[in-house]
């Protein structure tokens, strides 16, 4: 939906690739993203996502229509390739590892959340995904930006977390922006206990 007040040049709009095997969820996430002023491409599987990215040919993050993908949001439980497997493939690819990946899952399982974050997922959203979740993810993306400095910090953070994996018990889906004023919502309540927030904040402070 194009609104007069927010005609943005294609280059400055975030292009999000949304991956979900559920038609219903694809329609909803597409709407959530469009309302948040993003360009959206939805695909139904990890395989299709990799095809769209051109990962098998390592061409760079240009989709078929030449639009660079700025963010990937993927469902966790999908037949064939899970969102976790897709995440790993993306993070292990030199061409695409810098693209932030957000995992969405209906199941709020701590070990699952941990593995995803360890593999480099930016966030883990518990379904059903709400507009406030999407807006938060967008804000984090914008704040992160595409500068080299930011990229380096992200890589360091991941490395630091790897080094400290043994000592940290569990992390959670806390948004990387500590000052975002969020109302408490079901998607974050289960994962954002004060102890988790503290641990996550401490890890970040050390960067």
């Amino acid at each position, binding site marked *: 939906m194009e609104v007069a007040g927010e005609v943005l040049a294609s280059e400055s709009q975030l292009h999000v690739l949304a991956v979900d095997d559920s038609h219903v969820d694809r329609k909803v996430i597409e709407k*959530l993203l469009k309302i948040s002023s993003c360009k959206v491409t939805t695909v139904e599987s990890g395989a299709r996502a990799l095809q769209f990215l051109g990962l098998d040919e390592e061409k760079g993050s240009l989709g078929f229509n030449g639009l660079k993908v700025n963010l990937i949001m993927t469902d966790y439980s999908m037949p064939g390739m899970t969102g976790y497997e897709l995440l790993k493939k993306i993070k292990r690819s030199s061409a695409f590892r810098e693209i932030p990946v957000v995992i969405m899952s*209906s199941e709020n399982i701590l070990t699952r959340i941990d593995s995803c974050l360890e593999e480099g997922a930016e966030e883990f959203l518990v379904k*059903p995904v709400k507009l406030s979740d999407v807006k938060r993810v967008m804000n984090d993306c914008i704040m992160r930006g595409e500068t080299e400095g930011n990229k380096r910090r992200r890589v360091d953070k991941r490395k630091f977390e790897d080094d400290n994996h043994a000592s940290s018990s569990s992390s959670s889906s806390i948004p990387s922006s500590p000052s975002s004023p969020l109302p408490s919502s079901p998607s974050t309540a289960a994962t954002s206990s004060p102890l988790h927030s503290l641990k996550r904040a401490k890890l970040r402070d050390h960067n």
Partner: protein
Amino acid sequence: MERNPMRRQLAIMRQSLFDQGHVDEQFVQLEELQDDANPNFVEEVVTLYYRDSARIILNIEQALERKPFDFRKLDAYMHQFKGSSSSIGAKKVKAESTLFREYCKSGNGEGCMRSFQQLKKEYATLRKKLGAYFQLARQAGPVETASRPK
């Protein structure tokens, strides 16, 4: 309070959907995504949900005809159904899906069958109520904003 009688009737129907526990907060989330450009967004999503659900329900029915039950498969189907039910805010249906999955996990075939019958009933009721609601909504015409249930 709505002045237009049709709008008033619509508001009452909508309130009862929530009061009777058929839909939850996620339904409101979908309503808030509706706008002048997409005035029937919620109905479109729900229609997709019916299409997906018909397929999954058939799969489950067929799976329940094969003995012994393949609980893993049944659970996998219900996981899908629960997911989309949750995405449209179908509260009672979602709760029944959860129950079915518990029976799957404990290998309780009787429980699965009972739960599935109940689930189909809830699903049919939901379809009827939402059907009437959307029909009236289309007749009543566009509204400015969605109102939150008290």
